[in-house]
């Protein structure tokens, strides 16, 4: 693997760290299996790309993308909380609908951002090579996101959200409006994922309606790899695990694809992903003593 390929993998891992943290909030904190992310990731990319082309400030475009993602999350939450649709199914419905929404937003399946100003533009040409600038820049944003989410989850409000996912009956007895927590959590989760999509569009120079396929698996892979490596030792460690898992996942994929010995090609990506996630899921059982 070349240096550029390595840092490229780290960069992509950091972009998807936002997805991983979002998935962590939905799956682990709220115990809500949310597939909306397959739609909200390209939604974030689409919104940010269209706005940037329209001349909007790229930071503002990313913020609008987050709001769009939050709305998607709220729709899923409403289908589940208000209309009692099974959580997994509710999220699939939103995800399917978002495919059409994303096409409407972009007006075509693919929007290119070549030569457009992005959040990163001011940082290019400061002496550091581009393939270092991108992961460094995104890394700082990830750090900020992790600290904010961590402080939130350890606040009174965050504790209410964690209790909602862990023991809803107890949470209600403590005066927590569990329905509101699901709305809030799904909004934050999908806003983070959409921000990941916005970063993806800005670093890769395009938004594509199909770029969301498998987002949930990638996010979940990162969460599980993180848990497998670092164990369950508090919120901060879990969040660091999400970021680390996301980066390691990308490096592993890059390694698998760049090793000629294995004879893999880019189209084998989904299989490799599934194999990696399966391995990460089985590993803790194997460790516990073989008799899984």
């Amino acid at each position, binding site marked *: 693997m070349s240096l550029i390929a390595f840092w490229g993998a780290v960069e992509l891992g950091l972009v998807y760290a936002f997805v991983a943290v979002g998935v962590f909030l939905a799956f682990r904190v709220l115990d809500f299996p949310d597939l909306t992310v397959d739609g909200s990731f390209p939604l974030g990319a689409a919104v940010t790309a269209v706005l940037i082309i329209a001349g909007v400030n790229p930071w503002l475009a990313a913020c609008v993308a987050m709001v769009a993602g939050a709305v998607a999350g709220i729709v899923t939450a409403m289908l589940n909380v208000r209309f009692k649709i099974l959580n997994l199914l509710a999220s699939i419905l939103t995800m399917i609908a978002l495919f059409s929404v994303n096409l409407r937003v972009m007006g075509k399946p693919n929007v290119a951002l070549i030569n457009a100003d992005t959040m990163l533009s001011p940082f290019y040409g400061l002496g550091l090579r581009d393939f270092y600038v991108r992961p460094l820049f995104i890394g700082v944003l990830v750090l900020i996101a992790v600290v904010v989410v961590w402080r939130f989850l350890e606040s009174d409000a965050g504790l209410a959200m*964690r209790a909602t996912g862990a023991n809803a009956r107890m949470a209600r*007895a403590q005066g*927590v409006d569990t329905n509101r927590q699901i709305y809030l959590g799904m909004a934050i989760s999908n806003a983070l994922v959409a921000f990941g999509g916005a970063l993806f569009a800005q670093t890769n120079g395009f938004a594509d309606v199909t770029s969301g396929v498998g987002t949930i698996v990638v996010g979940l892979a990162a969460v599980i790899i993180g848990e497998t490596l670092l164990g369950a030792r508090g919120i901060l460690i879990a969040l660091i695990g999400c970021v680390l898992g996301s980066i390691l996942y990308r490096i592993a994929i890059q390694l698998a694809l760049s090793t000629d010995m294995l004879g893999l090609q880019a189209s084998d990506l989904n299989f490799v992903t599934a194999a990696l996630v399966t391995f990460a899921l089985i590993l803790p059982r194997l460790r516990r003593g073989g008799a899984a």
Partner: protein
Amino acid sequence: MISVQNIQVVFGKGTPLQKQALNGVSLTIEQGSFVTVIGSNGAGKSTLLGVLAGDVLPSAGQVTIGKTDVTRKGTAARAGLVARVFQDPLTGSCGALSIEENLALAAKRGEARGLTAALGPKRREHFRERIAELNLGLENRMGDRMDLLSGGQRQAVSLVMATLAGSEVLLLDEHTAALDPGMAEFVMNLTQKIVSERKLTTMMVTHSMRQALDYGHRTIMLHGGEIVLDVAGDSRKELQVEDLIAMFRRIRGQTLDDDALLIG
């Protein structure tokens, strides 16, 4: 003070399984009074507790806690008035959270929850002191996950949780039923201590006639969704478990064949 007036609760209305769980129950519990509630399975005692807690909303009647009419308020909306310890130790606390996080959650019961750190140094110290009073050594395990504790330890912590924030009423839902006899006694003594120290208005549902007579100021027996016995004061002091059974037979005019009532 708690007041329930002409409460009607029907489960599965309009279906073949329709059941009148509470039939016109009226009850007033004065400020600072400790009432115990007994009754066989299906008598309506859990439903009555649910009506007070907000889990069950009655089809008719009125529920007042303190000065607030809570008849149509759900569990979360009235949590500021109601502290509760569940029968199942797993229900009353969050296994995935640490002891001190559970306490932080309970300390804000019924209040707005902001972005302040849930476990600041001051709160930590306060929680530690409260847990140390239990003499279970748990004050050195404040960061441990709640699900590492035994059932009795969890109930003891749940009792502390119930008293961290102010409340008009403490509801105890057979909170010693899932414990071994030694731990049940410990939790009951702790309950007695907390209730009398803090002068809490308390309603305890219990499976044990012994417990129902030994603790509190007043005992109520439910049967078929109605109050069939309500004793307090001197007449209650003289009452024995055997009398209670005899009285139960006389009132209902039928034999008592529910073993669960006789035990304890």
